[in-house]
């Protein structure tokens, strides 16, 4: 049998091999050498005070093991998980806070390089926030929107502004179980407090704060960030782009933006395409400037400008190892400090830009929104100046794949009916008719502890074959993009017969790239729109929909998974469970949460089991909604023929019963 490669991407695998041959260490090698601590891995290690660390292991640990303070395994595991949620929420939300501050600065005219690009989106957001917008100057509206969002971070009582965007029933569940978030910072602080030594010890009670904190992430930090980014830089719509390492050009300056924040990257996009800079690049012997992205900063500029992406998290070292990257800017989150050391072996300059993040060995060019253009120019010049230092050293890869990205909530609504008939009716209809079996959010990181991106690829292939529509974000999107799945042709060649018909009717790939990991908020609003459209569940819970993060590694993924669970989506995370040591905690997060919220958080390392669980969740949801049983290739609208009497009753029947749902006189077969 062939040796199993470390990445499911051929290009990545080739670079890894090249690196190994040149004795260059990467996360793949480190992951092999450094086994996970078996106690910490399953959540049985408590290190919240210095009486410990305590390891709660041994026979019947669940019942018998105690920490020095007497904390049980369930307490410890729950505390660990809640702290991960708090960490993830802090990450997204601090990013969102910066977005809000940038919007405020732009509106007040102190950040001259930024402006409101998408006025329509601004008005939509203002409308949701209850801010008057008609007849007012755009910047006044923008300022009020920014200030209103900023309130969300420091609010002590009440509820987040965006809680009200959730379906009524979903909110009722939050109210009933006390998990409607108040202020973002407050929830994170309270989570940290309650998990510190000697405070909250009941697993269920602890996890409840985990849910509330996670909701502050989803309906707070993430959603705020997505909306402000759309307002400042435009709401994405479909565009063609490319991915993988072949996007690097031999004869141009290759500048990579890596990390998670869009603000500086947006300005770099602008600066790198300016005539001055291109001229400057030419003066240094390059034919031009080639901007590329990595991780989620890549997704941000990919979604809005079609800037090509060199891939997700595990590609960052490999990118440098191509020897073609003249400069790589990094901001925050998911940046391996290893790249600075690695870059020393090549000519690549790693440039840290966030005031929050420095890496030993990297050049620091600090960015602030008031001097964005200057910073961007400095960075682009550094990249250009470094171009002449490029050597032939590196694993030059030319393979790249095309993709279609840019599926915002707004465009997804538009694509189902155009300007006049935009809605989610076709999607709901397709699910009701059995053309689409269900919807999966295939999201999250890629991870060197497995064959990187392989589980994404496996699940994507199997799910679309089973007529499941996929929405993806973050490194999940990068995995699918690099694999070549984000093309409309994929639907024709590989999707099940029903999904294929829908994709063909609209002209979409079977996997819709929604943006960066922070844009998982788009999935929340899409699910809400589906609930409002009618015919499926009237809340997010109960939809034939599942979230999967098969290769997750970041705390942010845990925060995201948890906010989906709290919103009513069953979530399956890959890998071993970080609370696996406690059956009690696992039970709360699956059975108890499902009963309360119709969501759950599972951990399952076996890809085949993930697939089976997903399809089972979807089919059970269909059954509960009394939708026709999914059978591949057999579908059709339940047809109700209307006579005059039936038409007179239209107004009286709730939600305009023109759409079927009952009866059914014939089935069509494709």
């Amino acid at each position: 049998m062939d040796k199993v490669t470390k990445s499911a991407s051929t290009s990545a695998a080739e670079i890894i091999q090249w690196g190994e041959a040149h004795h260059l260490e990467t996360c793949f090698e480190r992951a092999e050498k450094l086994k996970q601590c078996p106690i910490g891995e399953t959540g049985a290690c408590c290190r919240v005070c210095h009486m410990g660390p305590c390891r709660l292991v041994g026979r019947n640990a669940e019942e018998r093991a105690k920490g020095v303070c007497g904390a049980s395994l369930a307490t410890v595991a729950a505390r660990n998980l809640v702290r991960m949620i708090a960490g993830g929420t802090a990450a997204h939300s601090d990013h969102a806070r910066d977005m809000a501050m940038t919007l405020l600065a732009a509106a007040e005219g102190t950040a001259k390089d930024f402006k409101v690009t998408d006025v329509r989106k601004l008005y939509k957001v203002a409308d949701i926030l209850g801010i008057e917008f008609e007849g007012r100057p755009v910047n006044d509206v923008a300022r009020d929107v920014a200030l209103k969002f900023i309130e969300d971070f420091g609010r002590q009582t009440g509820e987040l502004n965006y809680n009200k965007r959730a379906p009524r029933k979903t909110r009722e569940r939050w109210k009933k179980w006390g998990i409607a978030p108040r202020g973002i910072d407050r929830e994170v602080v309270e989570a940290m407090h309650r998990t510190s030594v000697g405070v909250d010890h009941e697993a269920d009670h602890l996890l409840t704060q985990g849910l509330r904190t996670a909701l502050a992430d989803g309906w707070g930090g993430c959603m705020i960030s997505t909306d402000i980014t759309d307002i400042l830089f435009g709401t994405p719509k479909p565009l063609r782009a490319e991915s993988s390492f072949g996007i690097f050009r031999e004869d141009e300056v290759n500048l990579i933006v890596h990390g998670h924040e869009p603000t500086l990257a947006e300005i770099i996009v602008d600066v790198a395409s300016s005539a001055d800079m291109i001229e400057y690049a030419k003066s240094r012997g390059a034919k031009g400037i080639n901007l590329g992205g990595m991780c989620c900063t890549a997704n941000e500029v990919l979604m809005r400008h079609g800037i090509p992406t060199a891939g997700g998290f595990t590609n960052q070292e490999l990118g440098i190892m191509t020897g073609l990257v003249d400069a790589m800017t990094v901001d925050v989150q998911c940046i391996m400090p290893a790249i600075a050391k690695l870059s020393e072996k090549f000519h690549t300059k790693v440039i840290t830009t966030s005031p929050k993040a420095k890496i030993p060995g990297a050049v620091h060019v600090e960015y602030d929104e008031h001097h964005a253009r200057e910073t961007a120019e400095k960075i682009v010049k550094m990249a250009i100046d470094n171009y002449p230092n490029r050597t032939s050293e590196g694993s030059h890869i030319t393979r790249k794949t095309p993709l279609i990205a840019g599926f915002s909530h707004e465009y997804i609504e538009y694509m189902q009916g155009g300007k006049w008939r935009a809605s989610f009716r076709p999607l709901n209809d397709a699910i009701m008719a059995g053309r689409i079996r269900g919807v999966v959010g295939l999201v999250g990181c890629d991870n060197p502890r497995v064959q990187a991106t392989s589980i994404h690829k496996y699940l994507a292939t199997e799910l679309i074959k089973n007529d499941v529509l996929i929405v993806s974000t973050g490194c999940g999107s990068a995995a699918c993009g690099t694999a070549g799945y984000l093309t409309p042709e994929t639907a024709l060649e590989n999707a099940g017969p029903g999904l294929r018909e829908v994709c063909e009717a609209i002209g979409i790939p079977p996997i819709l790239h929604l943006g960066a990991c922070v844009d998982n908020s788009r999935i929340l609003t899409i699910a809400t729109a589906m609930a409002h459209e009618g015919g499926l569940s009237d809340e997010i819970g109960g939809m034939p929909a599942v979230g999967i993060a098969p290769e997750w590694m970041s705390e942010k993924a845990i925060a995201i998974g948890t906010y989906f669970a709290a919103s009513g989506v069953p979530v399956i995370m890959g890998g071993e469970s970080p609370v696996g040591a406690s059956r009690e905690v696992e039970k709360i997060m699956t059975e108890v949460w499902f009963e309360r919220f119709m969501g759950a958080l599972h951990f399952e390392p076996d890809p085949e089991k993930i697939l089976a669980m997903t399809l089972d969740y979807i089919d059970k949801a269909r059954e509960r909604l009394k939708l026709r049983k999914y059978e591949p290739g057999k579908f059709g609208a339940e047809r109700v023929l209307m006579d005059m009497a039936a038409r007179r009753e239209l107004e009286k029947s709730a939600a305009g019963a023109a759409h079927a749902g009952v009866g059914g006189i014939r089935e069509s077969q494709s």
Partner: protein
Amino acid sequence: MSKIIASAAIRASHSLFRTAEEMLDKAIAEKGKDFVFEFPDTAFYLPLVYAMTAFPVKTLADMKVALEMAREMLHEEPEEKLWKPYLGEALDSGMATLFCEEIILALRYIEGLEPDTDPETGYVYNGFITDTIQRNLGIQLVDGRMPGFAAIIGAAPDDETAVKIVRELQEKNILIFLSGESGGDSVTRQLLRKNVELGWDTYIVPLGTKTEHTLYALDWSIRASLIFGGNKPGDYRAHLKYTKDRVFAFALVLGELDDVKWSTGAGAINMGYPAICDTDVPVIHPTGVCTYEHVEKELDHGKIVQRAFEVRGLKVTVEKPPIPVSYGPAFEGERIRKEDMFIEFGGNRTPAFEWVRTREMEEVEDGKVVLVGTDIEERYRAGGQMPLGIVIDVAGRKMQKDFEAIIERKLHHNINEAQGLWHMGQRDIVWMRISKQAYKEGITLEHIGTIHNTMTHNRFKAIVDKVQVTLYFDEKDVLELQEQARAVYRERDHRLAGLTDESVDTYYSCLLCQSFAPSHVCVISPERLGLCGAYNWLDTKAAFEIDPTGGNQPIKKGEVLDARAGRWAGVDEYLKANSAGAVESLNLYTIMDNPMTSCGCFECIVAIIPEANGVMLVQRGHTGMTPVGMKFSTLAGTVGGGTQNPGFMGIGVNFITSRKFLYADGGIRRIVWMTKNLKERIAEDFKKRCEEEGVPDLLDKIADETVAEDSEKLLEYLTSVGHPALEMDPMF
């Protein structure tokens, strides 16, 4: 696949945009940008642009603005490979196409090229469909006589197939619009070659020779939402939901498709109208913009109509008597000219009458048709003329004497709906013809009885258990029975005259229009008939007996809250519950305070003229100006849609001569202006009412369009003749 359709739709939107732009620039160069345009007889400007955007196109400059809106909806064609999504873009392009087509047709009107004329046959098409026709058809749209609409675009493979498809649609009561061509031929030409009678009366309306002319049908359907639906201009979501849920239209595309057909189709899909093609085209099955499939193919012409019904979600139940010719409302409008006539009855040529009698159960042999007379067969075979007395004996446990007149009034439709049979008048002034073609197809005299027998059962199944028809053909019998019938007619009229609002404790609602006007409720009392003129109190009473859960429901008047204004507790309660919350209270006898709402298909409008201290009356179809400064079409726009508009009201013509007409406002004395046409129509009854009211010369004092079309002239006239309204209490 769908991409082919989207590409075609997008391409055509660009080319139509260019055409519209060139034509418009030329028109502006020639006539100036302020040149005023309106389609004939509409209050809705360019109706589609107006409904979608609320922008009223009044001049060529406005047209330019509308065209720019279309430009914003243009998109790039999807790429060969790695295409971006195209459905939303194709639908937008379709709407752009409709905007451009509306502008192109408007410009063709300016150039005098519309209505279109067939260059080969000289046939003149219908062109733009007026508001008047729309309102005339109102009641048919809701009572099941016109349950759906087919736009046939192109040409059938041969003339016979064209006729077959059209006949099938007619038999199913579907209103048919014809447009476009295929392979140099069109269904219009095919039908003309087969001598099929075209026009509104036969449910076949040729709109024009090009695909673009289909827009007239779409323009018409979007106005249903404005007129009957009460949806506001610019509320495009409401309009498109209305057309999707309530206007059961679809396209039958016969022959090959070109870009313009696809693009017009994409525009129509926005409105929820699918296309069914008879060629091997790509299909779009997933649902959601339309209720079911968006594009479907059916290569078998024998199945295409049925398939279209399924795709549109349309249910049509047709009841047809066992006769050898086609049957249905679509054949009602056919005329039989003298040279096509085989035989006729009545019409002052021979004695004839029709009479429905209530009998005891045992006196009636159900289903029996008796022919009485000498040498009937021979005389019939000879053609020409014959006397005819029709006596219909009915029996039923729920039959009431009052229903005789109602059953009798349907005899006209019973006969007229048969292809090749023609009927006019009623009672003893009846006139009937049978065409040569119908005779050739096997229509016998007995069939006249068969038709009445079957249809009386069908229409009145809940009140009629047995029906027997006797036909008399000898002059002596006819004259003798006619006298008996006349005595009954007189007795009936007398009884009806005594029927007042005070004499009954129950009124009836008419909710038929709620299929189109969801919040409108007609309250029908003995002295106030429905505003469409089609239903009086007895009709609704019978209709309730026939179908206790149907569109006519009893309203217990309950406590009198205001006898003068005509307000009852029971009526208010009923309205609250049944008008979707739109109406809280109703005064039946005044126009000033909580007057009756309208669906949109009123026969005429009463409108207050404050300066004259009175009201004016204008009927549907009057195209001239009125003293309130609005034409009927504009005025109608302010009255319909199920809202109460004090000072404005839609009514049935016969209400004018009711004692309860504006009773609380001073009655007929308030009428200061009325069209000549109306004056003539109601003269006889109106004069009687004038005498009752002690103003015998009132009719002469009422102005009409020959003396005044504005309020200034009107006042002059009223003063000069000393109209009583000027002396009455102020209306406000």
